[in-house]
């Protein structure tokens, strides 16, 4: 399977085939992401801005290129994140479910091997993730949560940069055809 760095849209069904990962990768990587999310900021508070579970969900969703797989990964990771947070169960679950679904949908259409595409997708889905969480917090929990757009954009950019690096690392864990 070859990927062209000049084309963003997939030209054939063959180009859009899903990437395969080993089973332990699908379990360990999300767990590590969750562990990073809850553990690393205890020692490195400045890394608290990283949304590692989101990046992991995004990666698996766009790379597996199946919507059900993406939404299931998002739902499981989100619920796990909810379980580890003070949020009610379902807030991150719903949020990441939608992210996984839409990311998989995007991954079916465009070439997600491109670095810039990954950077852009990470930024956009981070913004979507934050915005949708804000909407649900206000609509479902009646919480008066503020949405700081500049800060969200800045953090989105940082997460996108980290995401591109993370995706490159995770590409190593893919099974080769």
């Amino acid at each position, binding site marked *: 399977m070859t990927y062209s760095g000049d084309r963003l849209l997939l030209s054939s069904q063959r180009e859009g085939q899903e990437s395969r990962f080993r089973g332990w990768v699908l379990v360990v990587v999300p767990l590590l992401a969750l562990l990073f999310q809850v553990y690393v900021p205890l020692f490195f508070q400045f890394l608290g801005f990283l949304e590692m579970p989101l990046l992991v969900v995004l990666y698996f969703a766009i790379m597996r290129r199946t*919507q*059900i797989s993406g*939404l*299931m990964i998002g*739902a499981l990771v*989100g*619920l796990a994140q909810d379980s580890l947070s003070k949020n*009610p*169960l*379902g*807030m991150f*679950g*719903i949020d990441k*479910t*939608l992210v996984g*679904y839409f990311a998989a949908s995007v991954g079916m259409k465009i070439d997600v091997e491109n670095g810039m595409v990954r950077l852009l997708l990470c930024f956009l889905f981070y913004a979507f993730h934050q915005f949708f969480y804000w909407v649900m917090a206000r609509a*479902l*929990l*009646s919480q008066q949560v503020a949405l700081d757009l500049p800060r969200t954009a800045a953090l989105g950019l940082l997460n996108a940069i980290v995401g591109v690096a993370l995706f490159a690392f995770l590409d190593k864990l893919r099974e080769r055809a």
Partner: protein
Amino acid sequence: MESLLNRYRNITVLLLVIMAQLVLLAVSAKNDQDVRMIRVWTVTAVTPLARIIEGVRGGGSGFLHNYVLLHDTSAENKKLQAEVDKLRLENTFLKNELNTAERAKALQVFQAHSPSKMLGATIFGIGAGSNAKVVLADRGTVNGVQRGMAVVTPDGIVGKVVAAYPMASQVQLITDPEFAAGVMTKGGARGTLKGQGTPQCRIDYVPFEDKVDVGEWVYTSGDDRIFPRGFAVGQVRSVRAAQPFKEVMVEPSGLQRGLEDVLIIVEGVHQDIPDTPPGLQPVYLAPPPPGAAPNSVQPVQPGNPGGTEADRLESAYKALGQAQGHDFGDNRPGEKPPDYTKLGQPAAPPAPKADGAVPPATGAPPKNPPPDAVRRSNQAGGGPGGQVP
């Protein structure tokens, strides 16, 4: 169905997963008042629907209820209206009864204090004929009513009996165009009262030189041998000078309060023309209740020497008349009036009563009518308020 699910499998799964997490979120989440969000959402979701349903139900029920109530109100309104009508009828009936009682009392008082012998009668019908002013009274020949007898009320003359039947009599009202009666004023002007078929009557044959004023009272003169002298007829409403007789219009006073109960003069006695019109005559004061204060005004009884000068004079006249065998108020035809010239002299033995003489109504008026009779007729002629104390 299966192909449909396969076609939309992804979105279906997405919705199911989200729904499941929503349920999870609702179960796990609590609001700031420690109420689970599933309750809040359920209540929030159900409340508008319930309010809509309740609004529809309440509106419909209210509409039906109000409609039913309106229907009941309409029926109740009709019922109340019928009750009001019934009460109005009862009220009118009671007022009529009261008026009848008052009229009966007035007639009784008038009858008791008039020297003429009268017979009470009730008008129960109106004679046929568009122009004829004729009524029917419930007294007839079996009661002693004869054709030509005068019919009066305490307010004035009403008419005369033109036909007497065994159980009823026909009375020609003074407004009938064929009615005529001799009348006179206090000033001495004489004439003939004639009906016009209108509420007012005309006095004919009043000499041009006689003085008649508007508002002056007119009384019967006794010249017609039907109406005894001294009964009120009415008030002059207009006087127009003409040659050789004046045209005088009179508004009858006997018909002004309606015509239900009348008095038929069976035996008339001439009286003097009253000094005061019926409306200005003394008002009867009933005796005070038992146990009243001693300094309160006590009615003066006839014969009571402690009364006024008029009462003492009345007592003297009455004693003289009784000494001469005269029964006041029960004069028979041809009976000789008491001789009051013997006032102050020793009482003479009672004179025998004359029978078969000319009825007093048809004879000449007495030159000196008894003051007692004059006074009583003056005071009683005005209706209920005309009783002598």
